[in-house]
């Protein structure tokens, strides 16, 4: 009697999957479980002691400042995502459909270059540009405008987020759009579609998956970023990463910081899963 080969685990395939499974267990599942456990610990004399107490959860989740930070972080990360997607789209469109293959390759290479330098250094360089005595205000001064306060504002925070996310979003959008079958676009144009309608009804639906992935990446990076809101936003309205720092700085309340971190992770999971579900959802008439 021979057993059904489909019912047996494919050891060969499993062997190749093992490294990533181990990686996830050691560097993701393990730390997350520890963080969850830590959120129930107590701090005594600046030292964490093992316990199972809900005091950290009640203390954080019943405070107005936590929810203020939470919603502020959600809103500013959403604003960052919208800005990055809108700014990146024309650039990605031009690179995908108007630029030559070699120009696109060079452009992608140039977009990768910012990642060679420290994000912190790039952020600090904005001080010179955005301060009241900085480059932008000096230029505006020539036409009788300003000076405007740009540092320590939401605008400053958004500029920092763009520094972090924009190159990545442009790359993701470009790669996605470059892979669209050009015949479909030409067909739409031949059938009388306006340029705008072609973008709206052909290009965007066809690049939906990549666009949503780009947006998710942008949101995740902005949501968890500490540098931009702290240095360019002046920590006005602290975001959740700043709240984590504040919580650990005074009294070394790592367990309470763990509560904030878990809330952040839950939010990001929810957004990422929703986004991915949307990205891969089949449209009307799809097979």
């Amino acid at each position, binding site marked *: 009697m021979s057993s059904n080969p489909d019912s047996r685990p494919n050891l060969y395939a499993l062997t190749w999957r093992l490294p990533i499974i181990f990686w996830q267990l050691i560097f993701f599942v393990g730390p997350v479980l520890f963080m969850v456990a830590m959120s129930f610990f107590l701090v005594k*004399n*600046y*030292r964490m002691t093992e316990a199972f107490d809900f005091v950290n959860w009640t203390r954080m989740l019943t*405070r*107005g*400042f936590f929810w*203020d*930070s939470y919603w*502020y972080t959600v809103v500013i990360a959403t604003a960052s995502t919208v800005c990055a997607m809108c700014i990146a789209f024309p650039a990605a469109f031009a690179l995908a459909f108007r630029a030559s293959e070699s120009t696109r390759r060079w452009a992608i290479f140039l977009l990768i270059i910012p990642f060679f330098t420290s994000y912190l250094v790039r952020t600090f360089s904005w*001080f010179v540009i955005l*301060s*009241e*005595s*900085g480059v932008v205000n000096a230029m505006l001064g020539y036409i009788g405008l300003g000076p405007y*306060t740009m*540092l*320590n504002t939401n605008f400053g925070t958004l500029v920092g987020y763009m520094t972090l996310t924009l190159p990545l979003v442009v790359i993701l959008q470009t790669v996605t759009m470059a892979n669209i079958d050009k015949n479909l676009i030409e067909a739409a144009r031949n059938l009388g579609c306006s340029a705008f309608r072609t973008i709206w009804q052909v290009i965007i639906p066809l690049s939906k998956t990549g666009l949503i992935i780009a947006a998710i990446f942008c949101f995740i990076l902005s949501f968890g970023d500490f540098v931009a809101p*702290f*240095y360019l*936003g*002046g*920590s*006005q*309205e*602290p975001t959740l990463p700043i*709240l984590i720092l*504040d*919580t650990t*700085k*005074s*009294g*070394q*309340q790592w367990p309470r910081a763990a509560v904030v971190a878990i809330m952040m992770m839950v939010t990001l999971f929810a957004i990422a899963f929703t986004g991915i579900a949307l990205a891969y959802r089949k449209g009307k008439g799809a097979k």
Partner: protein
Amino acid sequence: MMKPTLTSSLYGLSRRQLLKAGGAAVLTTPFASRAWAATTEINMLAWYGHGEPDMVAEYEAANNVKFVPKYYAGGDNMLALIAQSPPGTYDLILSDGEFVQQLNLAGYIEEMDPADYPLDDMLHEDFKQFPGHWADGKMYSMMLRGGHLGVSYNKNSVTAEEAASYECFWKPELAGKVGHFDWHLPTLGMMSLYNGNGAGLWDLDDAKWSAVQETTMGLRKQVGGFFDYGGTFNGLKNGEMQAMVGIGDWITGVLEKDGAPVASVIPKEGGIQFTESYSIGKGSEKTAEVKKFIQHMMSPAGQVKSAQMAAYPGFCVTKAGRAALIEADLAEATRSHQIDGDPQDPITLINEGHIHYRDIPQQQGLEDWNDFWSEYKSA
């Protein structure tokens, strides 16, 4: 003419001799390395700047020691770093005065011998037995330097008369231009002083604590940002911030020396003193070396170095130190008012009751103050 070979070289060495010399060199190399490694490493836990070359390089060269600094920001951070490290990790601990007591209670620091230090030469009586530095008649920390926190401002937008009161932070023209050093303790202390709590600024009952919170919240609309050490410097230097709450000459002094139009004064409601003191870490195996360094820092030369520290200035605490500073750097002594008879002389201000030593809240927990700080920031 004979061609030189390895056996009869120009240097007169035979192959055997060459091999011997080479072998000896190889065998003695580890000992030579060990001789270099004999430099004693001193692990220092301190605020930024204390382990930088301008402070320790000369001493290191002269005494064959090497400081390995670990920097912290804030007493809580310091306590946590010690709590999370094995005993003996830190040989030398620079602590804010108000946290020495907690270091001692937790058993993190060694007892010190008062005879080893110039206590008789201190500029103020309080400095001889500074609060918290002694317990049961035993000394646990040596006061190194201090600094005063008050109104820090840009001279182009705040006048000296206005800066004479914390009221200036509410000046309408400063809306969005008042910055905070991002630590609740100095700011809330100042707000407590502004509320008229004077010497009882840290000892607030519920009513006074509520009033302090209300006063602080009233300032929120003026605030343009919350900054760390570097951000505070930048904010004042580039003019984004025209006044700062929670700091003093330790920040503006550096900028002032650099030509920025900023200053710090102690307002009529009073100011707060930060105090930095050296302790010897419990379990350190280098107590003799650490003691020698503390003695050096308490010497006139060490006090001058401390007053001139590049990261942030602090005033001398010994009479000999002040005299040496006046002699070595009159400009700095004058700028920082370390001149007898100067109305802003730190010692005079203490004597006149304008200065209150920084402390921790007496009737609330630090976490209550911190929670309010988070609330204030997100308001």
